[in-house]
């Protein structure tokens, strides 16, 4: 039987506010346990939460970025359950009237085609603390620094049909939130956490199969592998005449498998009700328009412009718009050199190779976009050839000069285009290579094409790489074919 995979995702994005969603405690990462958990975060009696405007602004910006409706009124509700890292006994969240309504995210597939994933809604909520189960004399330790950190939970429709599409969707969300600057998007530190709903159904069937939810998958790679494992598990189960049980499963990256997490027969009953401590949040037109005015150009808009206006390939446009620092670097290079194709080649080629080799983020590149732009300009105006350009790049990378021009001058890399000078070098090479010249002249046209490489190499060497290779080639051919 042919099976179809159906995937929906709930992505929790930690918002990059300074303070918590309902209190003035800091959200800085890595502090000593419980030094950033105030009376409100601890749920002590008599405290009153007050909503953080920064978190509201970020949620609205996200909503506008995915063309979602932003309802005039949204509400906070209490989701009730008991766990030691949730001292109040409830999580303040939103359900009936979330801050962001239906929207859409465009994803880029492996074949460079595009697909729209519908967003059901996105809502604001607070994070819980952390339970540490290492041995504290047989007890569990609780750190509440994370309690009250603002999260935006983005809930998709079940629109994805493969693990690759799910990864493309998370990448698209990652790009949007980091472009907006509303999250650092650091998956390793838990700034983006995914719950994946997976089901399978016979191809052509309308109704969805029973789904399993995989909790807390925290890297692009694990999302893909967790889904692949889960799909295979469900298909095997169904083909053996079994049934998929609706349950929560956990992905174990070490064993590369998912396993059942909650086997309780009792379904969760969170008994949501409106939070009496928080009033309805009203956002007027002026506020929403004010947020809209702060939006930067978004990844999909950049990709379109790179492809359609700058004439880059779909692939190049996708890579260069994938992160904001990458896009900004590329655009700064382009502003200096004026040639999009060359700028794209250098950023994705020589620069990315150096960055990857030394594991440096593009934002910390030792070669500035202005330096690279000037270097490319010198190639474009024939001051240097491609070979010399790589030398200049390496020198800039190693901080052996402050600008391309300075390095070109200091090292005498200026391209030799003077015909007389090149001819002199050619004559010398021919005079020093009688054997090769004789072989060349006896050879037929096809062989000569290959053999000329030797002479070009010798002349380039004689010029210390500065001769114009096209000129060398043309003049050599003339002189060798003469006799």
């Amino acid at each position: 039987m042919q099976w179809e995979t159906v995937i929906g995702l709930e992505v929790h994005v930690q918002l990059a506010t300074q303070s918590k969603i309902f209190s003035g405690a800091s959200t800085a990462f890595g502090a000593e346990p419980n030094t950033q958990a105030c009376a409100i975060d601890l749920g002590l009696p008599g405290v009153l939460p007050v909503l953080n405007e920064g978190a509201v602004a970020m949620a609205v910006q996200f909503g506008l970025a995915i063309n979602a409706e932003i309802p005039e009124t949204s509400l906070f509700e209490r989701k009730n359950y008991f766990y030691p890292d949730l001292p109040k006994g409830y999580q303040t969240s939103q359900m009936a009237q979330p801050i962001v309504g239906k929207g859409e995210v465009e994803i880029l597939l492996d074949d460079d085609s595009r697909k729209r994933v519908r967003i059901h809604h996105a809502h604001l909520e607070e994070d819980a603390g952390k339970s540490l189960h290492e041995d504290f004399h047989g007890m569990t330790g609780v750190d509440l620094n994370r309690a009250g950190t603002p999260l935006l939970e983005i809930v998709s429709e079940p629109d994805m049909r493969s693990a690759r599409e799910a990864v493309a969707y998370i990448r698209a969300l990652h790009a949007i939130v980091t472009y907006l600057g509303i999250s650092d998007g650091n998956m390793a530190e838990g700034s983006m956490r995914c719950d994946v709903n997976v089901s399978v159904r016979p191809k052509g069937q309308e109704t969805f199969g029973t789904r399993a939810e995989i909790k807390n998958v925290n890297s692009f790679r694990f999302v893909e592998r967790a889904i692949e494992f889960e799909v295979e598990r469900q298909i095997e189960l169904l083909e053996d005449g079994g049934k998929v049980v609706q349950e929560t499963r956990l992905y174990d990256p070490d064993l590369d498998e998912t396993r059942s997490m909650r086997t309780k027969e009792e379904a969760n009953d969170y008994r949501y009700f409106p939070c009496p401590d928080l009033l309805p949040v009203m956002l007027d037109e002026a506020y929403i328009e004010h947020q809209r005015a702060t939006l930067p150009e978004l990844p999909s808009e950049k990709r379109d412009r790179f492809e359609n206006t700058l004439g880059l390939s779909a692939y190049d446009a996708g890579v260069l718009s994938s992160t904001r620092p990458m896009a900004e670097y590329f655009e700064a290079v382009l502003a200096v050199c004026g040639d999009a194709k060359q700028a794209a080649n250098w950023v994705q080629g020589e620069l990315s190779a150096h960055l990857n080799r030394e594991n440096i983020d593009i934002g910390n590149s030792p070669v500035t976009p202005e330096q690279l732009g000037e270097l490319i300009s010198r190639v474009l105006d024939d001051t240097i050839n491609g070979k010399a350009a790589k030398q200049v790049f390496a020198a800039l990378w190693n901080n052996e000069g402050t600008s391309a021009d300075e390095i070109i001058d200091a090292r005498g890399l200026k391209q030799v285009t003077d015909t007389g000078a090149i001819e002199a070098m050619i004559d010398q090479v021919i005079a020093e290579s009688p054997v090769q010249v004789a072989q060349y002249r006896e050879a037929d046209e096809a062989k000569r094409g290959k053999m000329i490489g030797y002479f070009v190499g010798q002349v380039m060497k004689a010029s210390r790489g500065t001769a114009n290779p096209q000129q060398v080639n043309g003049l050599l051919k003339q002189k060798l074919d003469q006799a």
Partner: protein
Amino acid sequence: MAIEHADVLRAAHLARLGLDSDTEAAAYVDDLSRILEMVDRLRAIDTEGVAPLSHPLDATQRLRPDEVTETNQREAFQACAPETSDGLYLVPRVVE
């Protein structure tokens, strides 16, 4: 809507309330049934076209600027905790 003994036990479990005896549970069956009777009477009212009331106060949420205003008061807060260690609150072991 009728409420039964089992419903009371379930609600008590969800709220982590310990009921001492069947007599106590029976008293809750009675009390909660009367509350639900009142809800049924409210339900009978025609509310077509009336927006749901999310909060009894006719006011909207005030927003706070995104600034850190709290300082570390861990020592004070942990003074009233039953047990702490290495800055952590200790609770009976949670079995995953």
